[in-house]
Structures are given as C-alpha cells and as structure tokens.
C-alpha cells in the first residue's frame, strides 16, 4: 500500500520515461572546477590525474579528469577556478585511499572523516554529506530517497536499476555511521523498476524496507518525513536534526564507490532531454565539465536553442547558455522553451492552498502583493520550499513563486518576522 503526504500534485501533462543505461562521458575537452577560497596545490602546466587533490580547503578539491592544468584562479580571466585540459587518457591518481579495514571496525567519526575526505555531496542540494549527517545525533532509521526530482526525469531510476547492489552497500555504510537499525527506501508508486531492483537486492530482509509514495510532487525531506512518520521538520531545521536523516540514492551509491575504490566524488549522473535534444539520455559526466559538451553525447540539438533549464521543471534554473559546468546538485538538463503564461489577477479560488505541501495559503500573499502591503504582512513565507506547486496549479498564472521569493529576500535583508 502506498503512503502519501498532504498537498502536492500530479501534473496532468507529465511524461514518465523508462529507465535506461547510464552513459559514461569523460571525454570533455576541459573541466572548470571552482576554487571557492581553496588553496591550489598544483601549478599551471602541471599534469594531474583523476582523483588527485588539486586544491586544499573545505572540502579538498579533486581533479575530475586527467590532463594539464591550464590556469588557476586567474583574476584576469574573471574566474576563481582551476581549468584542466583533458588528455583523454583517463589516468587515475595512484594515491587513492580506499577503506583500509572492514566497515564494522570504523567509528562514526572515522566514517564522517572519510565522507569529508571523499568530498561527497548530497545530490539533492549539493551540500556536504558529512555536514548534513553530523547534525544527526542519533537515528534509528536511515531514509533513502529513491524518487526523481519531478515527473519528467529518469536519472535516479536508471541509476538504481544499474547499481542497486552499490546502493545497498552504501546504505549499510551510512547506517553503521549513524547507528541506524533500519533503512527505508522511499520509491514512487510509478517507479516500479526501481522498486523491483531494490527488492531483488534486499530480499525479505526486515532491515531494509521499501516504502511506496503515492505519485505526487514534490518529494523532498519535508514531505517524506510527513508521509512516513506524520511528523513535521521545524522551520529552519533538517530531517537529520530530528533524527530522521534522508539521503538520496545517488549519494548512497557514491558513498559505497568511494569507500571501495578510494575515488572521491568526481562525477554526477543526470538526464538530458527536452524537445530540442536529438536523443534523450542519462549520462555520468565529470564535475566541472561543460554542459554543451555533454549534450553532444545525446547527439546534440535538433535546432539551435537558447533555453536551458538546469534542474526540475518546477524549481530549476533557466539559462540562455549551455556553457555552464556540471555541478553536484544537477538532476537534469532540459533543452526546451518554458511554457509561458499570461499573468492575471488572483481570483481567490484557493487551488494553491490545496496543493501546497507546506500548508501555506499562497493566495493570501497574492492578495497582499496586489494591495501592496509591506512584506511584514507576509507571515510564514519563510516556510515556503519553492516547489512551485502553487504557481503550476494557479488558473490565472499569478507569479506566486516570485512574490514569495521577494518576501523571503526582504526577510533575509531585514529580520522582519522575528
């Protein structure tokens, strides 16, 4: 029997794609890895290998391809990054350090230290996994999110179908670190392939259970906790803080791979699709690779297009260029023209409140905005997770997400609700 959470929606114009084989793509001509205040460990012209530390900081920055460093943090180039030109040899760094003893012998701190060393990021938000999990003081359950970011992608399902055993092993490592006695794999009702792949691995084990969520968007840690335990995560907190850590399936797979091979996180799995893409596909590409290069894997574009959506159709980011880099929280690249809507006045139908998973009444914010009330009146706007359900369902196309975002920005500038 499937479980559900309050609010949310099932888009009537959804496209459910089947899982497919993940294509590895490491033939990017170059990668640009942002330094973000880290100290370079290599110099321009030096040769680097896959998995080699190239900048020291929090966390350490690793080379994601083998090749030659072309420039570092050059202000004249207007970028704070290390650029590596690919030599197409895919040479792996010799100093990789896999787990040197059985997992059972690792302490919680040692595992967290390893997670930091391997620079593993949570694939849903891009934050460091060790930072997320260290907020959890004790946990009886570890929740693995095996759902897609929305109803239009297939990257997570494809990854799980291909690497279910790695998912299970990674989950065991994280369970050991957190002291959890049970792991819950949260799958979508329509994600039958992923469910079957997990069940084939776990068998009838009572330690690993699969929870099926009714097909509904958004699936995030707030909605998962609400659906599984009928509890709410306090505003400003995370699931880990209340003892119910949620980790995405891709991250758990990465944990196992890093512990078994010593290879830090150097790649990201995401889907490429859209009406302008010749062939939709799921690819694994090195972090920092140029997305325009990766799109070529799928056969390139049908016609020229300057509309790229990075992330979900509901809460992704629109860009006019594909000259951007692959980053750790990228779930998909969509090459399509966004659906345009004529913005009309709010008619107070209340449909937005019906679908809001955060139990807000976005209609009220639209009315306040119409009346030009100060942002102090927008109480609880900070609860909004920006899933976009309200604006999707709005029959008059009121730009609710933008209105709430403005209120949140005003709150951040001045602490107006406290």
């Amino acid at each position: 029997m499937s479980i559900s959470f309050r609010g949310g929606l099932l888009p009537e114009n959804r496209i459910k794609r089947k899982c497919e084989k993940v294509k590895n793509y490491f033939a990017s001509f170059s990668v640009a890895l942002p330094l973000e205040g880290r100290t370079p460990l290599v110099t321009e012209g030096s040769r680097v290998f896959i998995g080699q530390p190239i900048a020291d900081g929090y966390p350490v920055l690793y080379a994601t391809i083998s090749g030659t460093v072309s420039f570092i943090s050059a202000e004249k180039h207007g970028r704070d990054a290390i650029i590596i030109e690919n030599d197409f040899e895919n040479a792996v760094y010799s100093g990789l350090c896999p787990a040197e003893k059985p997992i059972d012998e690792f302490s919680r701190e040692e595992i967290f230290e390893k997670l930091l060393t391997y620079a593993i990021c949570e694939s849903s938000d891009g934050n460091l996994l060790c930072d997320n999990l260290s907020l959890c003081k004790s946990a009886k359950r570890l929740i693995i999110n095996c759902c897609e970011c929305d109803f239009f992608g297939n990257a997570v399902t494809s990854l799980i179908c291909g690497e279910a055993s790695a998912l299970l092993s990674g989950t065991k490592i994280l369970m050991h670190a957190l002291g959890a006695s049970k792991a819950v794999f949260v799958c979508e009702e329509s994600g039958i392939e992923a469910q079957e792949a997990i069940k084939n691995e776990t068998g009838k084990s009572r330690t690993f259970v699969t929870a099926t969520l009714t097909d509904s968007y958004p699936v995030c840690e707030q909605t998962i906790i609400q659906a599984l335990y009928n509890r709410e995560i306090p505003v400003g907190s995370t699931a880990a803080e209340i003892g119910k850590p949620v980790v995405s399936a891709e991250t758990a797979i990465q944990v196992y791979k890093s512990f078994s091979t010593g290879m830090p996180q150097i790649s990201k799995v995401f889907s490429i699709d859209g009406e302008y893409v010749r062939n939709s596909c799921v690819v694994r590409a090195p972090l920092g690779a140029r997305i325009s290069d990766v799109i070529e894997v799928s056969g390139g574009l049908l016609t020229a297009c300057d509309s790229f959506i990075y992330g979900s159709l509901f809460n992704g980011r629109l860009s006019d260029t594909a000259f951007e880099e692959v980053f750790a929280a990228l779930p998909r690249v969509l090459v399509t023209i966004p659906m345009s809507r004529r913005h009309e006045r709010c008619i107070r139908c209340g449909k937005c409140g019906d679908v809001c998973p955060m139990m807000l009444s976005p209609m009220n914010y639209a009315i306040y905005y119409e009346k030009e009330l100060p942002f102090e009146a927008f109480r609880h706007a900070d609860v909004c997770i920006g899933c976009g359900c309200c604006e999707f369902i709005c029959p008059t196309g009121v730009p609710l997400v933008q209105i709430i975002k403005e209120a949140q920005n005003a709150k951040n500038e001045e602490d107006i609700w406290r």
Partner: protein
Amino acid sequence: MTGNYPPFIHTRYTHGTLRLGVLIAMFPVAAWGVFMFGARVVTLLAIGIISAAFSEWLYRFASGGGFYGSFMCDFRSPAITGALCAMMCPVSVPLYVPAVASAIAVIVFRNLWGGEGKNLLNPAVAGVVSTELLFHGNMSSFVLPFSYHSATAIIIGPEYIEEVGCRSPLQVLWHGGLYEDGVSSLFLGVCPGKIGEIGIVVLILAAVILLVTRNLKPYTGLSYVVTLFLISYFFPVGENEAAVYALWQVFSGSVIFLAVFAMSDPVTTPKRNGGRVLFGVGCGLLTYVFRMLIPMFDGAYIALLVMNILTPLFFHITTPLPYGVSRSARENDISVTDEGDVAEQVGSEDRDSDKPL
C-alpha cells in the same frame, strides 16, 4: 512582474478552460429543460446570458473602460452567471425576469463587490433571490412538463398558466403532501419546477463533467445532500414515511442544482476540505430550517447565502498552521541542547518501534 522564475510548466486547466468546463456542464441541463418545456427555455437562457454580458460591459464602460476597451474582457464568467440565473427561473416567467436577475447578479453582487474573486455571495443565487423578492408571483408559478409555450411571447397569459399551471414538488411538500408521480419522476426530471433544477440525472451528469474538468470538489455538495437527507430522515414532517420524505427534501427544489453548480464556485465556498464539509453541513441544516420557517420560498437559496457570508470564517478556522511552524513555536520553549531534548521535541523514538517503517 517579469523574470525567469520557475515553474517552467503550468497546468492545462486555466481560468478560461475551467469556465468553459462549467458552460459544457450546463449543456445537458439546458437540453433537458428544452426537452421538458420547449423552445422558450432557449430564449430565457439567451436573454440571461446576453443581459449578463451586457451588464458586464456596461459596468466596465461606466467605470471608464471606454466603449471598445470594455469589450476586452473574458465574458465567460458573466455568461455562466446569466445562464445560472435563467436556469433558476420557471419557464413561465416573463422574458425580462432573467434579464433583471442577471443584471443584478453581475452589477450588484459581482462587480460592485470588487469584481470576480472578491464577491462574498454567489452572484447568481443572490441575483435570483433579489428577483424572487421583486417578482415573487412570477417566480413561483409552475407549469406542467411538456406544456410548451411561445418562445417569443414576453408574458404568458395568466389564463394559459391557469390552464397548465400546477404546484412544484416543493410546493406540494410545503402543503404537507408528496408529489403524486413518485420519486422516480423527480429523479428523472419529469415534473414541474425551475428550468435547471428538475432532472437529478442530468444534474449528476453535470457534476461528473465538473469533476472531470476539475471545477468541483465533491466534499461540499456531498456533505450538503447527506446532511439534508439525514436531518429530514430523522425529523420528518407530517405523516410521511421518513425515507421518502427525506428523498423528497433532497430531490425537490434547488438542492441538487446548488450542490452541483453553486458549490462549484471556488470563490464563495471554503478553500480547505474541512471548511468545505462544514459549509455543506451548515447548508443542509439551514435548508431544512428555512424550509420549515419560510414556506413558499426555497430555503436552500437563503441557506447558501448565509453560509457564503460565513465562508471567510470557515477559511480562518480550517486553515492549518504551516508545516513545521507549530514545532518551531515549541522550540522556543524547549532548548535543543542535548539528545533528550531533541527526542522530546519530536516525540518519543520508541513510538516508531511499533511501525513497520
């Protein structure tokens, strides 16, 4: 406001398509009315719609919208109001009655209230109630089914009405009796009554269309009908058999019509499911009470308008606290300093042990 903010996808059910869905749902009801009462129904509907559209234009023109500029609006909502007004009239009314009802509904109860979305009362029902007060005699004279009338005569002669006139099932109920043709005639709609309010079968079909086109949340209408049935069942009037009396209360008059069309109006009904149920229950109770207190006038209309006034209250009391807010309020009282405090904040972990997950 402009910008490249998500979401980049939107529902197909826009305001225009939703309104179109209501118009489509009205079609079988109107067709049944034409079958029962003849071409005069078409004339009444056309007059109601044209009057509503003209009233909308007139209001916009009077508000400074300009002669041509006032045409630049969506006339689907006024058209729905006009058609509903006409459907809530008996076929024998003079042709100006639906025109007046539509004009009052659109100008007074919709636009003077601030326009679409800001009206407190259901415009069509409020317009018809006002018209009933003005033309009570015309609005409460009914004719036999299949007694077709002139489609163009402004007023049907009283001598003709006397010839084919009869009491509606609701009027029979007020006089302590039951309609002699039985429940099946009420259910199938072969009985006297207002144009759109007879024919429970076609109204159910309209409800299905409204559900498919996402215009109707069933909670309000269902709770309304169930409440009225139960209260009539447990407190029957006269010597009628309880179940038959309860079915009569539900099937006669405008109960099902309002449950389908008036309660599909998202503006004047509560926005949360709890509020929707409360609204329906309140409507059912008040319909029964008003039908007892105010004979010769369908209490369902008054009940709906009273509950419309209470809608903001229902919205207020049924709106839950936003996600996580109650917890954070408690957080101010409980300092999260150690593991024990965290467990206290989220409840005991042991409770989870019984759960399979």
